[in-house]
């Protein structure tokens, strides 16, 4: 039972689920870029409102999204603290040695926090509502122009799809190996750095050995199932550009435009 959320697609039929993966992929990238143009309360407020709307439209419980933050919480806290303690400008509210907190740094810290949340949320929406295969298909379409220069786009997409498909398998296996070695007296997550690195060996070797075994068996099975050349296959799934994609693009472009306008305030 893994807490890991990435790669765990949740089946559904929401508006977001039924968008084409290409749109979702590109809109996610686009949204991340827009985030970096936001620089004040209006724009962050607008982007937050949009993400809340998207989450509601996805039909997935908000708790799933909050879980997605957990593994990254220390990274977020650290970065926000750094921003709060070391940035200058504005009224100094408190200072001690090299550290100082100003009203401006507090606001910046808050923005960075929101920025993190927004990025995690949009990527979580993407992975929760899009099957790994569809994401891989999305990548395939987005990269299609590269085919002209003989870049193996289809192979890459298939590799990506299989890699994503095996994420939960390997996570479960890691959990079992972790437990098995704990039962043999390994102390993970305590002691010096050297000790911890040493403790990782009994975890990583079996994990890699297992992954290689999976890969070997899988390639045999794929061959037996008639796979030979990833560049000449028909596709079971067709992701057509739909009306809902057009609408979504209009909404996102509009929000992006507004963020640019808000920069002036």
């Amino acid at each position: 039972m893994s807490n890991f959320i990435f790669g765990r697609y949740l089946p559904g039929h929401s508006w977001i689920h039924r968008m084409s993966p290409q749109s979702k992929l590109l809109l996610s990238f686009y949204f991340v870029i827009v985030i970096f143009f936001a620089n004040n309360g209006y724009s962050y407020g607008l982007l937050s409102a949009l993400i809340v709307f998207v989450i509601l439209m996805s039909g997935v419980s908000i708790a799933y999204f909050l879980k997605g933050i957990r593994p990254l919480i220390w990274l977020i806290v650290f970065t926000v603290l750094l921003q709060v303690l070391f940035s200058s400008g504005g009224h100094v509210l408190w200072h001690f040695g090299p550290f100082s907190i100003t009203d401006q740094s507090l606001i910046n810290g808050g923005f960075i926090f929101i920025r993190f949340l927004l990025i995690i949320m949009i990527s979580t929406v993407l992975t929760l509502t899009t099957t790994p295969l569809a994401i891989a298909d999305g990548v395939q379409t987005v990269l299609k122009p590269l085919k002209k220069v003989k870049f193996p786009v289809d192979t890459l997409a298939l590799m990506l799809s299989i890699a994503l498909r095996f994420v939960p398998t390997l996570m479960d296996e890691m959990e079992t190996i972790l437990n098995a070695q704990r039962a043999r007296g390994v102390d993970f997550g305590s002691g010096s750095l050297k000790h911890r690195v040493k403790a990782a060996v009994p975890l990583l070797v079996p994990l890699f050995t297992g992954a290689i075994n999976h890969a070997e068996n899988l390639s045999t099975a794929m061959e037996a199932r008639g796979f030979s050349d990833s560049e000449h296959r028909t596709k079971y799934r067709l992701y057509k550009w739909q009306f809902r994609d057009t609408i979504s693009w209009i909404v996102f472009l509009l929000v992006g435009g507004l963020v640019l306008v808000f920069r002036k305030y």
Partner: protein
Amino acid sequence: MDKAISLKNVTHTYQANTPFAQNALDNVTLNIEKGEFTAIIGHTGSGKSTLVQHINALLKPTTGSLNVLGKVITPTTTNKNLKAFRKQVGMVFQFPEKQLFEETVIKDIMFGPKNYGATDEQARHSAEHAMKLVGLDHSLSNKSPFDLSGGQMRRVAIAGVLAMDPEILILDEPTAGLDPRGHNEIMDLAKYLNQQQHMTIILITHQMDDVVNYATNVVVMDQGQAVKIGPPDTIFTDLDWLRKMQLDLPSSAEFARKLESAGIAFDQLPLTVNQLVDRVAQLVGKKAAHE
């Protein structure tokens, strides 16, 4: 007899306080005595693995408490001091060969003892003893475990647990995927450890013939609850109930039922070949006396 393991109202909730929350164990109370051979049965997902992972504190109860060899484990037990405790409770996971990682067989088996503070010499001694127990030839010591056959790798992994000299040994479907010879060797090893070394054995299995041939005590799990606990002959009595639990009958019980429908009566459903044959021999004897 002394209690080796005692669970009191143990409930375990996976991912508590999230939308994924589900009770994997639901108010389980049970006692296992020292020296017993206990089989834990139940269909896939009934909570067997979750149960045994509590016994060596890889999982802690969400509510309730357990006492294993005098060590009390509650929801608030910290991970400190668990190491010494885990040494006493050996755990062989499903497909344990997946945990092998060292360059040589002997090093892998020595890994456990060394983690528990044994010197190289002590660890090597324990490892060699464990190899003997599981029937691995000494000549394999310096081979890479990854060059061995599947059955041999399984035995290296089990030796790695036995080398820690545990008092309780938990085996989670130890024979899955093995051929019949490998299966019998592992089951005979469990029997030997139980009878000769007085180890308390806990076996998770789907094979009812192993339950009746080896176990002295059976725990039936269903939906996270221990629904029935007792010696094998008290478990395999109510056929409708067994079907509801999605459990098979042992081969001999199955065969005895066919004999019954052919008109041969049994006072008690036989569970093993010997029990079945005893009854048949008795009936034949009676007939001979009659004549």
